[in-house]
């Protein structure tokens, strides 16, 4: 029995069933004549709710994994173990304080929870994000050099886009905005559209291979 359950065909069949369950109503739901689609659509909707539960539970797995990794780091006194203590304490305190038991003072209104969010998580995240400004300025200075035709095109286009996003330049030189808008509307849009359509075609090919059981990368590392 256990050998039957371990057969590779079972997850492939499940993948096919659940993929079609989502795909069929998506393309046929508005064809009111196709009454056959209604029960499939209902089933699809139920399965979507299942996924929410599965994802919610997977968050617990993430927390357990984090505790295991950093717990071992602290236990073995590995390099940077002090930081792991901060991770563990923050994770445990935030998780307990945010538990949805408002009657005992826990949850999103808990003062510890709101304090950690407003005075630790928010400023730390914003600070990390803000440091990008320094790196971008330095990187732009070093990389934007007119060393050849291609680099010059990138340099000119990049500078015009930078200028078209700054009111200082658009107020004094309105033509900068006009050129920047053209770069945005024409070459940028064409490139983005090509990337989007190319990616979509690739995904369709991947989906077909998965449905046919030829793509097995998501199963046991792709082996039989």
């Amino acid at each position, binding site marked *: 029995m256990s050998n039957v359950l371990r057969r590779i065909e079972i997850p492939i069949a499940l993948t096919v069933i659940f993929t079609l369950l989502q795909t069929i109503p998506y393309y046929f739901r508005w064809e009111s004549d196709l009454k056959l689609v209604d029960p499939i659509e209902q089933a699809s909707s139920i399965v*979507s709710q299942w996924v929410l539960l599965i994802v919610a539970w997977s968050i617990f797995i993430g927390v357990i994994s984090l505790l295991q990794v950093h717990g071992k780091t602290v236990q073995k006194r590995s390099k940077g173990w002090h930081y792991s203590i901060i991770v563990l304490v923050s994770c445990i305190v935030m998780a307990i304080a945010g538990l949805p038991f408002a009657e005992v003072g826990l949850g999103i209104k808990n003062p510890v929870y709101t304090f950690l969010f407003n005075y630790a998580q928010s400023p730390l995240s914003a600070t990390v994000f803000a440091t990008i400004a320094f790196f971008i*300025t330095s990187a*732009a200075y070093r990389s934007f050099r007119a060393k050849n035709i291609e680099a010059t095109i990138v340099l000119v286009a990049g500078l015009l886009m*930078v200028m078209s996003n700054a*009111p200082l330049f658009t107020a004094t030189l309105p033509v900068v905005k006009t050129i920047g808008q053209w770069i945005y509307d024409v070459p940028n849009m064409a490139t983005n559209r090509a990337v989007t359509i190319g990616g979509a075609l690739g995904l369709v090919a991947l989906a077909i291979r998965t449905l046919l059981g030829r793509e097995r990368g998501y199963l046991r590392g792709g082996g039989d």
Partner: protein
Amino acid sequence: MSFVEKLQNIDRRWIYILAWIFVLYPLINPLGLPVPIQKESTAWNKAINDIPDGSVVVFSCMFSIASIPELYPMTIATFSHLMTKNCKIIVATFWNDGALVFDQTLLKQIDPATYGKVYGKDWIDLGYAPGAETAMRAFADDMVNTFPSDYLYSKPTSSYEIMQNIKTAADVDIIVSFESGTPGVGEWLRQWNTPYGTKLIVGCSGVSAPGMAPYLQSGQLNANLPGLTSTAEYELLIKRPALATAGVDAVSMSHLLVVLLVILGNVGYFATRGRKS
């Protein structure tokens, strides 16, 4: 090393100090530089103004705390603008930080009660649902089951007056989403706009703006508000100058620094290239 040679190899620490000064100075001493109104902010303002009375709006903070400096001003400005409209607002997010961003920061700035909006009747905060695109699809098909209880008071969603006539995406007129990545515009388009025809407008960080161009041009996206500069313009349009207006001088100055440094680097490069050859 001569002066022109130094120009193309300025120590990064000097650049960091300059960046720090160029950003901080205008924040402490606002320069009051002019802010020309461009088409993005005009389209955004029009999209909000054109929301008919009695419409249902899904308002979504699809960004993490790290994006607060850029996306928070546009979120506040738009939410305050929506408060002046006669519409029902459903707040929901599919980013785990999104619910906290709305609850801990935005609600401290804007109290819907001061606009005469009653919680549960005119607006509701449903919080966060895990599952990204799948959750967005589930939300479109069955709102109450996707968010069985609300975020602020943990009461059954179905018990609120506002949710009595709002069941699926077909009952929603427009999505107002602020986002910095995935899930975001692509997922809204796939799961809401295409199957249900729900209108969509998106506020995003400046770096995400190029990716919005195809959707804007195709008409799938009705308006896009990119970055702090457009937000400052929008704040001026709705006559509510706030965070973005205060920060837009810093944007101008930091961009000026980038332009100056790039020019200096190239002056140094061409000067020394001639000598080497």
